[in-house]
């Protein structure tokens, strides 16, 4: 294995190659003091390089455990195990039954969902609704988790969150009233203030802050294990204006996307990114597409596009590995995101 594949800085790599160390074996055989002297770095840096090299080469020589049914390479899961795990994972409802239906139950955990649309279509509203709905206790079919809300535009209104939280608690009370019919169970023990307490709010004002925050989230979530959703509203804002170096922007965005994917998988949470729209010149006409370019369009697992159809708001599933392409109407009311009024003929239960 080559030295080029070790995650070390370019200058150290250059020094190693100049001193004649081109394979891991060569480094592993040297002692830290010899290495430090040969490539002119401090002893601690040399031992760090050595530990990386020995870790990499020992990973190659790891003995296979005794057992006929182990994977060819450690660290993976068979599809059968993943299928069984999926049956037990729950979704975060959007409070709109039609939208939940096309999403297969709601926003799924372990996946990164991108939601984009024109201004005023309700992206922030959906974000706030999800931040509240993730906290629905498990007795009512929710996840009982906390939410992280990363605000880049300053569109998070606490009064609105309070409004939506109160409406959600009223819906929960009505649900338990309908299904349990005994008055003790009617008392929903959640108070709107509790819901507000469980939303961790971060405000970022530049792209460096955004990237630094995403890097920090790993540690944060280790300390707050019940976070179940991260909402980034919106992921585009700091990358659109005044970014001179487009190549740097592509690199930063793709690295950020990979980090978010890793967070989603590692902690089994849902990540929702809200995006803006731009026009693109395609085949002789201008079309509306989501911002941040072609490379970014691959950085999400699912994509939902919100658009106006006449006077109604619609959501369309543009990209998904397992869901069918479909669209559903929804509406934004004082109580939050709900079914579109034209399609609800009776009061729907949550």
């Amino acid at each position, binding site marked *: 294995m080559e030295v080029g594949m070790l995650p070390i800085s370019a200058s150290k790599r250059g020094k190693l190659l100049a001193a*004649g160390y081109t394979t891991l074996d060569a480094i592993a055989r040297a002692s830290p003091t010899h290495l430090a002297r040969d490539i002119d770095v401090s002893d601690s840096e040399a031992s760090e390089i050595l530990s990386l090299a020995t870790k990499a080469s020992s990973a190659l020589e790891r003995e296979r455990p005794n057992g006929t049914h182990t994977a060819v390479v450690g*660290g993976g899961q068979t599809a059968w195990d993943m299928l069984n795990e999926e049956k037990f994972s729950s979704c975060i409802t959007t409070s709109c039954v039609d939208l939940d239906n096309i999403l297969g139950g709601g926003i799924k955990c372990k996946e990164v969902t991108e939601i984009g649309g024109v201004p005023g279509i309700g992206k922030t509203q959906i974000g706030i609704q999800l931040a509240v709905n993730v906290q629905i206790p498990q007795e009512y079919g929710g996840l009982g988790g906390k939410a992280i809300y990363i605000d880049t535009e300053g569109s998070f209104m606490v009064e609105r969150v309070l409004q939506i939280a109160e409406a959600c608690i009223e819906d929960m009370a009505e649900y338990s009233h309908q299904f349990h019919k005994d008055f003790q169970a009617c008392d929903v023990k959640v108070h709107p203030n509790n819901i507000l307490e469980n939303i961790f709010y971060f405000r970022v004002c530049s792209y460096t802050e955004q990237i630094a925050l995403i890097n920090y989230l790993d540690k944060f979530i280790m300390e707050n294990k019940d976070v179940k959703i991260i909402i980034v509203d919106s992921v585009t804002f700091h990358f659109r204006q005044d970014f001179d170096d487009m190549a740097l922007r592509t690199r930063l965005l793709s690295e950020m996307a*990979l980090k978010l994917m890793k967070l989603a998988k590692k902690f089994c949470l849902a990540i929702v990114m809200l995006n803006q729209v731009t026009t693109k010149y395609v085949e002789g006409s201008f079309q509306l597409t989501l911002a941040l370019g072609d490379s970014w369009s691959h950085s999400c697992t699912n994509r939902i596009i919100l658009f106006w159809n006449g006077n109604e708001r619609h959501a369309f599933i543009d990209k998904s590995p397992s869901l069918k392409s479909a669209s559903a109407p929804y509406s934004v009311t004082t109580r939050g995101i709900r079914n579109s009024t034209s399609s609800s003929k009776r009061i729907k239960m949550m």
Partner: protein
Amino acid sequence: MAPLKSLEKEYPLIDSNFQSFCSSHGIFSVEDFLLHDLDALIAFADNHPTSQTLKQGIDQLLSTIDALQPPLLNGLQLLEDAQRNKHVLLTGCERIDALLGGGLREGQLTELVGPSSSGKTQACLLSASTVAKHNSSVIYLDTGNSFSPQRIASFVGQSSGHVFDNQVDHILKKVLDRIICYSVFDVYQMFDVLHQLKSNLRSEIVKSNQHVRLLIVDSISSLITPILGGSGPQGHALMISAGFLLKKLAHENNIAVLVTNHVVGGEDGISKPALGESWKSVPHVRLLFSRDFGSNVCHISVLKHPSMASARAASSTLYL
């Protein structure tokens, strides 16, 4: 290519005498040794008091280096290897198989290029399910959490239509057990997995139903884009090393490798595959995917193929 002194433990002939002789000629590592004029070195060794041991040392070094080379093959041996070992794997979609000249060929690196949501991941999942159904193992490296076991289950269920219900679960379990999925979020992680795979495949004796025949990386462009460009050529070097490693794995272990790539905007607004000019020559076969907005039909055309004409195209419908 280690410094010479590190070889002393394994090869006692490379002792300090030999090393000081070499350093007097400016040779400090094995690489320097190979670059040096060996005849001149042997002539100098003759004039040295300890010429016998020095010449033995030189021979030892040369034979060790020779032993590390892969064997030379002639055309006939390559043909026999291709006919006997490099089979064709069906992808599960007849139109794609027709475009590929039979299917995915073992020993070749096939690339699926296309804009977002054009059907690349679906094609990967379909190929994985088809290959797993035919009693082979599949390794799936997933960078975007898009591996969907539900989708694979629906593919398996679609094509095994005549089976009774109580057998379906049993078949499904056997097929899904052969597909192993790794989540990689980092190009270095991918290298780790591939190197482990390389050394495990080299050293183990596998039963026939655990043979890995298909390796899918979905998508390799999301791993390489963060490191490409920027201040140094490091990103390019890693990209090309990844390509070499995949092709080497494919050839030595008779595996078909499938990778996906995305598109970027080029001149005049025409999109071109990402990862640049250097990557263009790495895959053996390149297929371009595209999908009309709002329809279920995806169009596939051949950008590059070693034995068939390019620009042939086909359309296929993604059923759900």
